[in-house]
C-alpha cells in the first residue's frame, strides 16, 4: 500500500471486511454453494474475495454494499476455477450452474438469506452428529478449524480432516440446502438446535471467560440461536433454545467472584444478573408456550426461569424445578437431567430423597467420569453426615474437574466438612492459590 493510505484507511477496510464476514459469511457461503453444494469451493472463493477486499478497499474506499462486492469477487473466482477444470466432465455443468447463480444474483435486490438451509444441510442425518456443530460454525460463521478444534478438545489436524470429509459428503451425497417440509421439520430442526446448543455449551464451559475462544463460542451459539428463532418464529423449540441460552448468559457475570472463585447457582448474587437478557428470555418463553407444543428446550428454559425467579422474592421453588426435571427426564433422559433432578429433589424434600434418586441411576456406566454426579453425591452425603463416603465422592469429583476454580470450591467444601466433623482436614488446603 502506497503513501497517503494510512493506518486508518487500512483499519477501516479491515473493520468493514470483518463486519461483512461476521454478518454475511454464512449468507455468502449458502448462496455460492446452493446449487453446486460445493461448500469447500465456495469457502476458497470467499477467502480470496476477502483477501482482495483487504487489498482494494483501503485504496478505493469501502464499497456501499460490501456483501455485493464480496459476492461478485467470489463469483469471479468460482467461474475461473470452473473454467480451469474445463476438461473435466462436470465442468460444463458447473459453469452453467455458476452462470445461473450470477443471473439470479443480478435479479435479486438483496443478498438472499439461505443460512437456515445451509444449517439444515450441515445437521442432515447423513452427516455424523459429532461434526454437525463444527460444520455449522465453519460454514455459517467462518470460524477456522483450529479455533473449533480447541473448543471441542480435538487436535486441529483431526478437526480439519473431519470438516473436509463432511464437506465432501455434503457435495457427493446430494444433501439439499433447504428447510425441510412440515413432515420432517420437527426431527430435522432438533438436530440443528442440538448443534447450536453444543456450540453454546462448549463456550459456557469457560465461565470466567478467560479463554477468548470459548467465550466467543458462547456468543456464536447465542447468535445462531437468535438467527434460527428469527427465521422460524412459529417453532416453539427454536424460541425455547434461544430463551434457554439467554437465561444462562444472563447469569454469567455472577458465576465467578472478582478474584475468580466459583459461585454455585444457588449462591449467586442476583444483582449481578443481566435483567434485560432475562426479560427477553421470559418474553421468548411466553411466545413459545402460546404455540402449545412443549419440548425439551422449552422445559429447560422454564427451569432456568424458575431459578432466576429468585431475583424477585429471594426464594427458589425447588418442588417446581424437580417437577420440570421429571418432565425433562421423560422427554430427553440423560445423566445430566437425572443428576439435576436429584439435586432439586434434595432441596425440595431433603437430602435423603435426593440421594435415593442418585442411587437409582448409580448403575449407569456413563457416570464413571461424569463430575456433576460425584459433586452432587458428595454434597448430599455430607449433609447426611456420612463423611467417609462424602470424602471419597468429593475426591472423585475433584479428580474429574477440568476447571481449577471449581476444583478449589470442591476442595474447600471437603475441608469444611472435615473440620465440622471434628477431625483435621484430610490434606492441607491453602486458599492462597496462584490464580
Amino acid at each position: 500500500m502506497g503513501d497517503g493510505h494510512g493506518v486508518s484507511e487500512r483499519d477501516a477496510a479491515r473493520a468493514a471486511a470483518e463486519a461483512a464476514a461476521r454478518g454475511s459469511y454464512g449468507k455468502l457461503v449458502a448462496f455460492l454453494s446452493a446449487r453446486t453444494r460445493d461448500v469447500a469451493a465456495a469457502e476458497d472463493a470467499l477467502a480470496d474475495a476477502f483477501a482482495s477486499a483487504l487489498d482494494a478497499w483501503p485504496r478505493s474506499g469501502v464499497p456501499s454494499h460490501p456483501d455485493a462486492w464480496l459476492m461478485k469477487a467470489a463469483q469471479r473466482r468460482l467461474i475461473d476455477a470452473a473454467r480451469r477444470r474445463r476438461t473435466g466432465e462436470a465442468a460444463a455443468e458447473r459453469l452453467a450452474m455458476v452462470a445461473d447463480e450470477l443471473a439470479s444474483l443480478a435479479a435479486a435486490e438483496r443478498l438472499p438469506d439461505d443460512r437456515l438451509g445451509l444449517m439444515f444441510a450441515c445437521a442432515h442425518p447423513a452427516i455424523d452428529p459429532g461434526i454437525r456443530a463444527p460444520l455449522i460454525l465453519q460454514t455459517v460463521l467462518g470460524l477456522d478449524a483450529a479455533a473449533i478444534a480447541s473448543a471441542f478438545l480435538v487436535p486441529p489436524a483431526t478437526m480439519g480432516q473431519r470438516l473436509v470429509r463432511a464437506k465432501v459428503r455434503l457435495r457427493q451425497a446430494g444433501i439439499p440446502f433447504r428447510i425441510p417440509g412440515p413432515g420432517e421439520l420437527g426431527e430435522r430442526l432438533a438436530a440443528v438446535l442440538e448443534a447450536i446448543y453444543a456450540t453454546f455449551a462448549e463456550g459456557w464451559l469457560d465461565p470466567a471467560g478467560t479463554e477468548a475462544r470459548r467465550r466467543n463460542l458462547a456468543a456464536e451459539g447465542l447468535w445462531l440461536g437468535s438467527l434460527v428463532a428469527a427465521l422460524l418464529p412459529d417453532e416453539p423449540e427454536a424460541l425455547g433454545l434461544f430463551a434457554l441460552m439467554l437465561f444462562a448468559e444472563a447469569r454469567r457475570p455472577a458465576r465467578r467472584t472478582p478474584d475468580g472463585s466459583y459461585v454455585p447457582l444457588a449462591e449467586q448474587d442476583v444483582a449481578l444478573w443481566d435483567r434485560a437478557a432475562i426479560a427477553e428470555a421470559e418474553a421468548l418463553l411466553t411466545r413459545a408456550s402460546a404455540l402449545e407444543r412443549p419440548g425439551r428446550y422449552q422445559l429447560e428454559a422454564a427451569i432456568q426461569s424458575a431459578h432466576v425467579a429468585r431475583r424477585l422474592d429471594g426464594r427458589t421453588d425447588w418442588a417446581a424445578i424437580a417437577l420440570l426435571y421429571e418432565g425433562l427426564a421423560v422427554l430427553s433422559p440423560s445423566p445430566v437431567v437425572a443428576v439435576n433432578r436429584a439435586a432439586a429433589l434434595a432441596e425440595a424434600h431433603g437430602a435423603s430423597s435426593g440421594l435415593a434418586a442418585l442411587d437409582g441411576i448409580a448403575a449407569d456406566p456413563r457416570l464413571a467420569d461424569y463430575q456433576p454426579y460425584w459433586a452432587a453425591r458428595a454434597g448430599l452425603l455430607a449433609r447426611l453426615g456420612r463423611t467417609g463416603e462424602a470424602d471419597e465422592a468429593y475426591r472423585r469429583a475433584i479428580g474429574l474437574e477440568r476447571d481449577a476454580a471449581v476444583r478449589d470450591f470442591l476442595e474447600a467444601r471437603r475441608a469444611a466438612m472435615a473440620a465440622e466433623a471434628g477431625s483435621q482436614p484430610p490434606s492441607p488446603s491453602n486458599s492462597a492459590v496462584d490464580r
Partner: protein
Amino acid sequence: MKYLFLIYADETVAAKANPTETMLPAYAAYSEAMAKAGIIRGGERLQPVNSATTVRVRDGRTEVLDGPYADTKEQLGGFYMVDVPDLDAALAWAARCPGANNGTLEVRPVWEMATA
C-alpha cells in the same frame, strides 16, 4: 490405546506458588479418578530438572553430563500412562490434569509392539 501424558510447567513459578500445598490434593484426586475409571497404567512426579543427569556413549566413550537433555522454558515435571479407547478420550482426561491449568500437557500415543 495407551497414551503418555508428559506434564510440562515452569518450575520456578511452581516453586514460588508452593506446589506441595496447593497442587498435591488436586493431583491425588485426579490419579484416584483415573484409577476408579480403570484407565491409569502408571505415573510419577519427577524431581526438578537440576537433579537430571544425561548419559551417552560415543565411539566407545561414555559421556556423563549434569543437567537435562534440553534447556526449555517449561520443564518435564511428571507423567501419566493411561489406557483409553481413543485420542478423544485421552484429550478429555488430559484436560482434567491439574498441570493443564498452569502448564502444558503433551499427549503421546505409545508405540504398540506386536506381542511375539
